[in-house]
C-alpha cells in the first residue's frame, strides 16, 4: 500500500466510527493486479506516449479520471489507483503537482456549480496546466473564521467590483486564475452572504506581494490586494450566496489529499524514508530514536490503511467528508514528528541551513524534498487547511455529537456585527 495509492482519491466520504459499510465481497487489501486489463491498457498508453504533455494527459482523461466525460473517465477509485500507480511507474509528473488548485479541489466545483461556458473557458487550460490557479480565501482578519471575511463584491451592470485583501495564497504570483470567496450580501448572516468567482489574476487592481516565511525558502505564500477589480458576472461560480457551501466541499476534498502519512501535508518523505535514513547512518541504534521511529512507522502504516478504508467506503457510494478531518488531525502532527525526529537525529549539524545528514532514497518528493525544509516549514502543517483546534471542534461536534461552540455573531446580519450597542450589551 503506497502513499500515492492512498492519496489518489479526490473524494468525499462519510465516517463510520468502528467499521465501514459494504455490500461487496471479501475484504482484500491487495491493489489491482499487474495483469489487470485496465492496468495494462493504461500502461500501454504511457508506453506509447512516454513524454505526454499535460494537454495530452487531460484529453486522455488521466488528469482527473474520477470526473465524468469529457474531462475524465468516471473512474471508480480502483481505476484511479491504477492510473496513479502507472503515472509513477512511467515517471511522469502528475498535473496535480503543477496545478493542484485546478486539478484537485476547485476545478471540481465547476462540474456542479459552474455554467457550461465557465467549464469550457477554464477547465481545458486549467487541467492542461497552461493556466495556473490560486485560492483566494483567507484574510488577515480571519483564517480559521473564514466566514467572517470582509472582501466585498458589489454588482455593477454586467460586472462585479471587488475590493479587499487576501492572504496565504500559494502560487498567486504565478497564477492566471484566482478562485475567490467574497461577500456579495453584507446584510445576510456571515456564511450566507458569500459568493465564489473566478478572476483573471492579471486584472487591473490586483497586487501580489510574497510573504517570506520562517523557512527562509522561496516564498510559498502571498498577500493579494484587490482594488476596484472588475470581474464579469458570468465568472461567478454558482449563485450568489452559494459561496460557503462550495468552499466547504473544496476544503473537505483538499483535506482528503493531505491526510497521507508524508512529512508535510501528506507530501514529502514518510516514515519509510526516515527509517531508511536512520538505518543507513546507524542512528537507529540509539534506543530512544529507535523507539520513536518505530512508533512513527506504525502510525504511518495505520494512516495509509485509514485512507484505504475510506477509499473503499467511497467505492460503496458513501458521501461526505468527516474522515478528511480525522485523517488530517492525525496526519499533520505525524508529519511534524517525522521531521522533528529526522532533525534530532542529525544532531547539532541539523541546525546548519539545508544540511542533509539523513540520506533519502531516490524518489520524487515534490516540493518538500528535504528533511530540512520539512522541518522548518513544519509548524505550518497544523495551521494550513484547518488548524488542529478547528479540526478537533469539527470532529468532536459533528462526529461525536458533543455540544457546539458558540459564535454569537453567526446569526446576525454581517453588517451589524461589532456595532457599539451590541458590544455594550455583551
Amino acid at each position, binding site marked *: 500500500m503506497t502513499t500515492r495509492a492512498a492519496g489518489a482519491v479526490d473524494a468525499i466520504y462519510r465516517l463510520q466510527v468502528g467499521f465501514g459499510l459494504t455490500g461487496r465481497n471479501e475484504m482484500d487489501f491487495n491493489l489491482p493486479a499487474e495483469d489487470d486489463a485496465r492496468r495494462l491498457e493504461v500502461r500501454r498508453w504511457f508506453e506509447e506516449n512516454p513524454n505526454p504533455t499535460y494537454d495530452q494527459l487531460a484529453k486522455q482523461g488521466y488528469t482527473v479520471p474520477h470526473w465524468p466525460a469529457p474531462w475524465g473517465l468516471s473512474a471508480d477509485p480502483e481505476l484511479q489507483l491504477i492510473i496513479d500507480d502507472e503515472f509513477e511507474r512511467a515517471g511522469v509528473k502528475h498535473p496535480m503537482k503543477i496545478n493542484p488548485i485546478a486539478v484537485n479541489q476547485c476545478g471540481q466545483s465547476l462540474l456542479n456549480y459552474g455554467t457550461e461556458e465557465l467549464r469550457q473557458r477554464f477547465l481545458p487550460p486549467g487541467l492542461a496546466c497552461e493556466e495556473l490557479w490560486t485560492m483566494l480565501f483567507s484574510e488577515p482578519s480571519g483564517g480559521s473564521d473564514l466566514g467572517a471575511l470582509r472582501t466585498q463584491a458589489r454588482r455593477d451592470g454586467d460586472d462585479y467590483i471587488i475590493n479587499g485583501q487576501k492572504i496565504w495564497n500559494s502560487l498567486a504570483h504565478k497564477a492566471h486564475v484566482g478562485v475567490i470567496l467574497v461577500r456579495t450580501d453584507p446584510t445576510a448572516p456571515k456564511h450566507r452572504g458569500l459568493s465564489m468567482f473566478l478572476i483573471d489574476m492579471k486584472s487591473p487592481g490586483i497586487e501580489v506581494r510574497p510573504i517570506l516565511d520562517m523557512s527562509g525558502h522561496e516564498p510559498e505564500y502571498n498577500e493579494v490586494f484587490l482594488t476596484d477589480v472588475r470581474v464579469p458576472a458570468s465568472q461567478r461560480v454558482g449563485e450568489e450566496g452559494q459561496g460557503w457551501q462550495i468552499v466547504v466541499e473544496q476544503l473537505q476534498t483538499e483535506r482528503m489529499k493531505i491526510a497521507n502519512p508524508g512529512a508535510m501535508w501528506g507530501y514529502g518523505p514518510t516514515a519509510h524514508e526516515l527509517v531508511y535514513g536512520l538505518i543507513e547512518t546507524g542512528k537507529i541504534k540509539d534506543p530512544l530514536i*529507535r523507539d520513536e521511529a*518505530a*512508533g512513527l512507522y506504525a502510525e504511518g*502504516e495505520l494512516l495509509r490503511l485509514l485512507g*484505504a*478504508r475510506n477509499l473503499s467506503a467511497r467505492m460503496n457510494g458513501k458521501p461526505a467528508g468527516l474522515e478528511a478531518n*480525522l485523517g488530517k488531525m492525525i496526519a499533520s502532527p505525524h508529519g511534524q514528528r517525522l521531521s522533528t525526529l529526522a532533525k534530532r537525529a542529525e544532531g547539532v549539524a541539523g541546525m546548519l541551513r539545508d544540511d542533509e545528514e539523513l540520506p533519502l532514497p531516490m524518489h520524487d518528493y515534490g516540493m518538500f524534498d528535504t528533511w530540512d525544509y520539512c522541518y522548518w516549514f513544519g509548524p505550518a502543517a497544523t495551521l494550513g487547511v484547518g488548524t488542529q*483546534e478547528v479540526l478537533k471542534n469539527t470532529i468532536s461536534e459533528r462526529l461525536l*455529537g458533543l455540544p457546539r461552540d458558540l459564535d454569537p455573531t453567526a446569526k446576525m446580519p454581517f453588517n451589524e456585527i461589532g456595532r457599539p450597542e451590541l458590544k455594550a450589551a455583551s
Partner: protein
Amino acid sequence: MDFTLSDEHLALQDSARNFLTKEVKLEPYLRTEANEQPVARDGLWPSIQALGWPGLVVPEAYGGLGMDYLDLVMIVSEMGRTLAPSPFFGNLAGTWAIERCGSEDQKQALLAQVAAGELTLALAVADPNGDVNGQSSAARATASGDQWKLNGKKSFVVEAGSADKIVVVADIDGQQAFFVVDAKAEGVHIERLDWRDITREVNSITLTDVAAERLPHSDADSWLWIRDRLYLVLAAESTGGAEQSLAETVAYAKERVAFGRPIGFYQSIKHDLAELAGGIELAGAGVQFAAWALSENHPDARKAAAIAQSYASEQYSAMTFRSIQVFGAIGFTWEMHNHLYYKRARANAELLGPPCDQREQLICMLEAEHRAAA
C-alpha cells in the same frame, strides 16, 4: 480490492454484540465484595461454547468452523467491548499452540473437543520473573523413558483455573518446547494470582514431576506464530474496549453539567476526545489489516500484528485514563465501569510485553528487510 468488511462480517459482529450485550453482567465486579474475593463465574463460558466460538478458527479438518481471523476479530472486539469475563482468551491461546505444534493425532483428538465445547485449554508461557516469551527456563522437561516430566514454575497464565488441559512451554536443554498436561494431574498446583484486572483469572502454576505429552512440531518460529495471533486478539479486545470507553465518556460529557453547560461543550474536554476518536479509528484499521494479513499469510503479517498491538494498547490506555478524568471523581470509584476498562487496558499492555517491545520487534524486522534489500 476492498478494504471494508463484508455483510457476513458485519452480521457476525452484530450477533456477537447482541449476544454479549445481553449476557455479560459486569455488576458483580462493581460491588465492594469483588475487591475482597474473586467474582464467581456465571454461565457465560458454556453459552459461548454452545455458540461454537471456541472452534471459530479451528480448521474444519479438526472439527472447527474454519473461519478466518477477520471473523475472529468481529467476535473478539465485542468481547473486549463488554470485557466478557470468560476463559476465551486462554482457551484460544492453548488451541493455537496445539494447532501449530501438535501431531496429527493430537490435533484430531484435542481440537475437535475444543470446537465441540467439551474441552477448555490454557497456555502457560510466561515465567514468574516476568519473561513473557518463555525464554528463561523456569519450567524444565526431562525425558523419562518415552515420557516427559515437567518441573518448575510458570506464571501469568490466563485462565488456567478453568482449563481442563494446559499447554506448557518448558525447556529441554535450553531449547523451548511445548507440552500438554492435565490440569488435574498429580504434581500440578494452580494458584490464582491477585490480579488487578478482575474480569480475567490469571494464575501461577507449580509443576512437580508432572507427566506431560510433548507437542512434537515446535521450532524456532512456533512461539512467534502463536504470539502474532495473540497480539491480534489483544489488539482487537483493546480496540473494542477503547470504543466502549469512548462511547461511555462522550455520553457522560453530554449529560454532566458544570458552569451552566454540559461539560462536553468545553474545548479541553471535546478536543481530547476528538484526538482519542482518531487514534481509536486508526487502531481499528490496524486490527482489520492484521487480521486480513494473518489470514492470508501475507509477508507483512508479523509487522502488522506488532503494529496493531502496540498502537491499540496505547490507545486503550490513553482512552481509559482520559475517561476517568472526564468523569471526574466519580470515575475513580470502584462502583463505576471506568476502572474495569482501565485495568484491562494496563493488563493488555503488559501481558505479552509492552508496546515498546512490539516496536523493537518492528524495527528489527525493518532492519532485516533493509539488509536483505542491500
